């Protein structure tokens, strides 16, 4: 765990897709070691903001940003930042479970293979990493005999857990989750939420959700966004019970989705 009080800090962050501005002057601090949820109606920029933290949104050509993001005290837009190293430290779980079309085992060690020279990858190291990661997400018991099966054939819930498990061998500081439960049923949602509780403390977790109930249940702090701006950032209880901004109040009353 890092010593910094804030795992992520943004200062005056604006972002454009082509000529469309998706984020307006976002300045916010996300505390280390807790779960922070980003909520807001669709199109409010919460996913965009999340994708800035590991710069994965730059895959789409026409993205332009201004302002600053510091993760663990380092500005991630510095020219000497290697995206590969950044993404090693900032892992991401996506809306739809996206295990790679290779075996369960290879999925878990994919990150290791990518980040470590081949000579350092002894079989025993890999085996150990797989067991540790799968145990941590509670899949080891179910999957230890099926490590060679293709990961895309698992149940959705298992797939999503696997997507989380494959981040762990890289020892990330921050885990970003983009509506991780939206493709799952009620049971799967609950399982993922429980997993988040267990991982919180070891990792800084930022989760995007459109499900207010989930935000309320599963996060320590909430950031409410609207039209690309941060409207309110507060402890979850405070935000839901005592919203400072009338727009927040309207939203949590369910006036709009």
């Amino acid at each position, binding site marked *: 765990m890092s010593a910094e009080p804030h795992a992520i800090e943004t200062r005056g962050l604006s972002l454009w897709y082509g000529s469309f501005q998706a984020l307006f002057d976002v300045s916010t601090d996300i505390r280390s070691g807790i779960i922070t949820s980003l909520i807001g109606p669709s199109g409010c920029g919460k996913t965009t903001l999340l994708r800035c933290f590991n710069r*994965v949104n730059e895959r789409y050509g026409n993205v332009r940003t201004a302002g600053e993001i510091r993760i663990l005290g380092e500005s991630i837009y510095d020219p000497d930042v290697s995206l*590969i190293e950044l993404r090693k430290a900032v892992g991401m779980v996506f809306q739809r479970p*996206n295990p790679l079309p290779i075996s369960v085992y290879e999925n878990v060690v994919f990150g290791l293979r*990518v980040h470590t020279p081949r000579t350092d990858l002894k079989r025993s190291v890999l085996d150990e990493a797989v067991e540790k990661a799968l145990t941590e997400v509670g899949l080891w018991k179910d999957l230890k005999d099926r490590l060679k099966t293709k990961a*895309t054939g698992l149940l959705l819930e298992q797939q999503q857990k696997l997507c989380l498990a494959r981040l762990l061998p890289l020892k990330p500081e921050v885990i970003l989750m983009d509506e991780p439960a939206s493709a799952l049923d009620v049971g799967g949602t609950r399982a993922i939420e429980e997993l988040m509780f267990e991982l919180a403390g070891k990792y800084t977790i930022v989760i995007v959700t459109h499900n207010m109930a989930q935000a309320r249940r599963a996060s320590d702090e909430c950031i409410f966004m609207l039209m690309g701006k941060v409207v309110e950032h507060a402890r979850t209880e405070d935000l839901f019970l005592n919203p400072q901004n009338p727009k927040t109040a309207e939203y949590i009353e369910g006036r709009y989705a």
Partner: protein
Amino acid sequence: MSSVPSPIRIARAERSRAAVLAEKALEALIRLSGVSAILFVAAIFFFVLKEAAPVLFSEGFSLGQFLFSTEWYPTSANNVRYGTFALTVGTLSVTALAMLIAVPFGLGAAIYLSEFCKPRLRETLKVVIELLSAIPSVVWGFVGLTVMSKLIVNATGAPVGVNVLNGGIILALMSVPVIVSIGEDALKAVPDSFREAGVALGATRWQLVYRVLLPAARNGLLAAVLLGVGRAVGETMAVLMATGHAVHIPGSLLDSVRTLTANIAAELGEAPSGSDHYRVLFLTGTLLFLITLVVNLTADFVVRGIRRK
């Protein structure tokens, strides 16, 4: 039905009988056109086989000789022999060489287009590939006959520039666009979520390609290669003009060969209809039809393999 009086309700009109009937007729026409492809394929097979069939039962013709003899003397004055083995080998050698060149280039270009290239450049390259695939085969043949054969003679010192090498290069150029465009489709069909997952784990593009995309798109890429083979096997005018047209099992790349397709094209015009020679050419056509049928079915099967997953 409209028992509840309502302010917005107006009388419901019925569509006129004529309109309904016209629609029915049109739909029948659509269905007919839809199945026409089956009819055409069946008709092609039927007519080609129909012209070929009598020779199968004629005296002095043996299927074994047809398939496995290298002696092609369709008009001999005293001993007519119809052996297409050398022609088959000719087709295979030219196709194999073409694939040897076209597959790495085609797949490499497909990977570049789908994974490495900026959208603008991709559009441009796709236009180039489309134009390349639009060049008529007779123009390719002409290029083989004039340009390529001179180049080959100058470069290798071979006595004759129209040979396996020439045909192979021309065919490679002709089948590369097929391989690129279908290969690119196959790579594009790999869900973006896989790429996203890889990128988010810090993989470089190249790692992404060989660790994730190639395994995931394996079947589609195989289909691309197969369709490239189909194109090469079936090509006629280009090989007719570029391979030198010798009934001969090639010993080197610089030997001239004759392919099944070129043989038909060269001799069909001069084989009086109804003669055995004419029918044997149709039989060769049937053989070609079956070969490409198998190649295409395999390609389709391979592609559908991935879709099912």
